[in-house]
Structure formats: structure tokens, C-alpha cells
């Protein structure tokens, strides 16, 4: 409260709020209509809805035309995002530790290499990856895209985790060793808990990024079996014959709800990734 009054003593806040509101109004209206259009009907050319309906949401309980039902697609997306997250977390937490602590040969070279990989735009790799996947027989399979996506997410994760491990004092590990714990016990029981905030944040990042990934599944697993929501959504607008904007919006809302929920619950952890430090 005290800070509140201090702030308003220095300058009036309502003009700022007003200006911000005006600037962001188009965005707000857009989101609002995005949602309203999915549960209403309006006359062609009119912005004012004239009837409430749930028929745009019927994709939830029936498959439309020759399209697959939404549920296997949603499940695919969930499996895709979850698996990628798990792989990224496993690899980053262990590789980051090794790079931060152990004297592996070629460590500097490896770190630089990881950095370059991270800076590499993934689209430029896509043709090569396509060929590789076809050769090893993972083209058009969920496993294939999972591996590719995880590989592309990893460099950032490894660097991030290395940075967080660097902030954990050496003495804690020395103390653990002197207390009689094995190197692995020290890692699991003493070091990992210190970087938990980083793991949470990285996991969320990986999950959200995989959930919204479009290019990779579109190119590497376009088939109906491995389809994910982003590809499904894209196929809705690509379909010129029975173009249904309201359906597109409804699926869109369906697609972003998990993201919003995750964000609501975990935004603190997400902020952590920029704050750094192991205080948590």
C-alpha cells in the first residue's frame, strides 16, 4: 500500500493506463472475437452476433467429413510435447552438469558447438532431416519428430542448465562427498534440488514450444496417424472446399486452452529462467 501511494504521488497513473488501453484495444478485441465467434452465429458481414450456438464445437464429439477425430490428434500432441519435454529435461540436466563440473576432454569445443547448434535456424536443416528420417525409416512417425524436436530444443537447455549448475557452490558437493555420499547421490540429492527452478522453467519452455511446434510435424509427419493439433489446424484453412472459419477458431481456442492453463499455474517458474540464481 505504501509503495502504491508513493507511486501515485509522483505521477498520475490513469493517463498511462488509458494510453495503454487504447494501444492494446485492437488486440483485446481480436482475442474477444476469436472466442465469441466460436459460440455464436452472426449474419454475414455483421460483427454483432445474433445467436448462441455450440455447433462450432461439435468437432469435440463427432468427426467432421473425412477429417480424423480431434481426440487422437490431441493425444498425439500431448504425447509429442510430453516426450520432448522429458527427453530435453533428462539430457539437459545431465549434460549441463557434466559441462559445468567435470573435466571432460574437448569441453570448450563442445560448449561452443552446442551454442552454434542453438543459433542455427532449424528450418535450414529441415531438408537434411527429412532425408535422414526417410533413410532410417522414421519419416511420418511421431517418434521421428519427437527426436528431431528434442534435439533442436536441447542446446538451449544444456546451456541453461550449465549456467544454473555453475551457481551451485562447489563446497556443497565437497561436503556431500566428505559426508560419504557417492558422486551420483550428491548429484541427485544435493545438486538437483538446487536447480529445480531451472528444471521447472526449462520443462515448461520445452513443453510450450513443442505444443506449438508446426513446421517440424508438418514436414516430417504429415500423415493422419502422427498428426498433431497445429497440423490439424492448418489443414482446416488449407481445405478450400468446406472452409469454416468458426470451426477454425473453435479448434484454435481448444488448442490454446492447455497453454493458458499451464501459463497461469507456472508463470512464476517461467519468470525464474530470466532471473537466474538457485535461491528458489
Amino acid at each position, binding site marked *: 500500500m505504501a509503495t502504491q501511494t508513493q507511486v501515485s504521488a509522483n505521477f498520475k497513473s490513469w493517463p498511462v493506463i488509458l494510453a495503454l488501453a487504447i494501444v492494446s484495444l485492437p488486440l483485446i478485441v481480436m482475442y474477444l472475437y476469436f472466442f465469441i465467434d466460436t459460440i455464436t452465429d452472426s449474419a454475414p458481414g455483421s460483427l454483432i452476433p445474433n445467436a448462441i450456438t455450440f455447433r462450432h464445437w461439435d468437432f469435440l464429439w463427432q468427426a467432421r467429413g473425412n477429417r480424423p477425430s480431434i481426440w487422437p490428434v490431441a493425444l498425439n500432441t500431448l504425447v509429442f510435447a510430453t516426450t520432448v519435454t522429458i527427453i530435453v529435461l533428462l539430457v539437459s540436466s545431465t549434460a549441463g552438469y557434466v559441462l559445468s563440473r567435470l573435466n571432460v576432454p574437448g569441453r570448450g569445443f563442445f560448449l561452443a558447438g552446442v551454442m552454434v547448434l542453438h543459433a542455427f535456424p532449424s528450418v535450414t536443416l529441415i531438408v537434411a532431416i527429412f532425408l535422414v528420417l526417410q533413410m532410417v525409416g522414421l519419416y511420418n512417425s511421431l517418434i521421428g519428430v519427437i527426436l528431431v524436436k528434442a534435439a533442436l530444443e536441447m542446446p538451449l537447455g544444456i546451456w541453461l542448465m550449465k549456467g544454473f549448475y555453475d551457481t551451485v557452490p562447489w*563446497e556443497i558437493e*565437497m*561436503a556431500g*562427498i566428505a*559426508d560419504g555420499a*557417492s558422486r551420483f547421490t550428491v548429484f541427485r540429492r544435493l545438486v538437483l534440488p538446487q536447480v529445480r527452478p531451472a528444471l521447472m522453467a526449462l520443462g515448461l519452455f520445452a513443453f510450450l514450444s513443442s505444443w506449438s511446434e508446426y513446421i517440424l510435424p508438418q514436414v516430417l509427419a504429415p500423415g493422419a496417424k502422427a498428426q498433431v493439433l497445429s497440423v490439424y489446424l492448418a489443414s482446416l484453412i488449407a481445405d478450400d472446399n468446406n472452409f469454416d472459419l468458426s470451426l477454425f477458431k473453435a479448434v484454435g481456442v481448444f488448442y490454446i486452452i492447455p497453454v493458458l492453463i499451464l501459463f497461469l499455474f507456472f508463470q512464476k517458474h517461467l519468470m525464474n529462467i530470466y532471473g537466474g540464481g538457485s535461491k528458489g
Partner: protein
Amino acid sequence: MRILLDKFSKSFGTTKVIEDLTLEVADGEMLALLGPSGCGKSTTLFAICGIHKVTGGRILFGDRDVTDLPSQARSVGVVFQSYALYPHMTVAENIAFPLQVKKVAPDQIKREVDAIAALVHIENLLGRRPAELSGGQQQRVALARALVRKPDVLLLDEPLANLDAKLRLEMRSEIRRIQLETGITAILVTHDQVEAMSMCDRIAIMNAGEIVQLATPTEMYHNPRTAFVAGFLGNPPIAFLRGTAKDGGFALDNSDIRLPLPAGTLSPADGSKLTLGIRPEDFGPLGDIAIPGKIAFVETQGRENLYDVRLADGSMLRSIQPVRGDIAVGNEVAWSASGAKVMVFGEDGARL
């Protein structure tokens, strides 16, 4: 348990930190490794606890050669300068950790944690996290964690460096009390001579990776082997006068002051460089070797005053005396040193 370092050497890559160091710590003894920063104290300590692999020599606990044993198999308790408490665990969990790792039964863990907590007086803190403790309390927890396994050896790396002056005084006697109560063999690493003198049975004073002298605090104070040792022990510190040997006496550089050498000193060859060491308590109105000078500074210490006396050649002697009101800065004084206490060092710093 007795600890023996036998011709122990340690280098990091091409940097030799310790070479051929031999040191024996008796069972139940508390020994101080005292020396300036960077002289290799912590390196020695970490070699004993097994965190550093030695490059040469042997380390024995009792009669057991532990040179090639990993730290986990050595049974050492270590207290780090930063305490290194596990921040995500409560005090009780911190202390229990070494026992959990040993797979001790939970009810026994509880009993031992309670017992050790009582020993170091932290019974009421068991539920807190390290961040909620003061420095002295963290120190006690670190001690408890190091001792809970009943290790053969307790190693303390600058345990008091992070405490404020008052707590340092308190923890000095606490650590000693706990060491005596448990009867554990302990090595205390410190760069503070007061800690070493007040807490330990013997002091090993180190310089540049070598042990210069190993003796009891009293012996080392009154009978230092080199100028380095003499300069390291004592607060306020000893004052040195530089000069040359002349006709069996001492000629102070850049002045015409001549002083007799104390009885019992081997007469050095004429013209050789000498250093006289005179402790503040051995210089005052009562000595037998008169050294005239001028008061340059008076430091009030409460019970005593410390006088800086500037001699004709510009060098400085210190005198500590009960507070007296008759002396002010600028006064000429003719105080003397007690000849029996003056120490003479040769050019290489060794005591003559």
C-alpha cells in the same frame, strides 16, 4: 586416531603447491595449520579428506594407509569455511544426511541427530532451514553434521573466518569444548594466529607449501625458529630492526645506534646482515638494552596502551604498557629491551 602425512606432495598441473611435507598429528590432538593465504593449507586439508588426490607420498589414519581410498571410505568430518549446509534441507535433515547415506535405520538416525544436536546446543533449531540461521548457528550445524558419523578425524577449514568478532570468540571455545568432549583428532586450518594459539594443542606453521615449525603455542611464541614465525605470532606483532654485526654487537642500519647482542647468541661474523626481533611486551621502561627513540603514535587499547617508537634510522619499535598519562606523541623516550627476550635472526631469516 593418529594421522600421518608421509612425504606428501600435491601439484595442480604444473603448479607445485606442496612438496614432501611430513606431519604427524597425535590421537585426540587438535593441531592448527597456520599460514598466510595461498600457502597450501586448504590443499593439505582436502588431501587428507580425500577430495584432492595426492601427487606423491602417503596418508595414514592410524596404521591404515588411506592414500588411495576415496573420500567416502575415509571417515572424515569436514567443516567448510562457507559451512556448505544443504540449503534445501532442514537442520535435522542436514545432520541426518551422512547417516542416511550410510543406510542407518531411521529411529537410530533420529536418536543420533538429537544427541549431536544437544552436544552443539542446537536442539531448538532442528526444524529450520540454513537460510533462517545466524552465522554462529550455521557453524554449529556444520559441526554437528561433520561429527554425527563419529568420524576418525575432524577437519576444519577456516571455520571462524565468516563470523563477526564476538561470535568468533564464542565459537573458538565452543569448537574446542566439542573437540575435547568427543576426543576426536582434529586439524584446524586458519590464517589467524590468535585462533591457532587459543584453540590448539600444537601449531604447524606453514609458508609456501612447507612446514616451517611445529610446536606448542607457547613454545612457538617464545622460541620461534625463523623471523617468519616470529612475525606471524603475536598481536600486536613483533617489531624488527635491521642492521649488521659489528665487533660482536649489532649496528642498526643508517644510524649510530649500537646494541649488544643478547647473551647466548653465537657471535656472527662481522659485517653479516642481522635482524633483531623485539616483542612489544619486551620493550619498555624496565629492560636492560637501552634504545632511545621518539613516540610516533599512541594507540589506546583500554587496559593497555600501544606506543610506536621511532628510532633514529626511521625504523619502528612497539611497546605495550599499562595505561599511563605522562607520554604523548612527539616525546623523546629512552626505553629499553629485555636482552634475554630479544631474538636475533640471520640473513636467511633463521634464528641464531
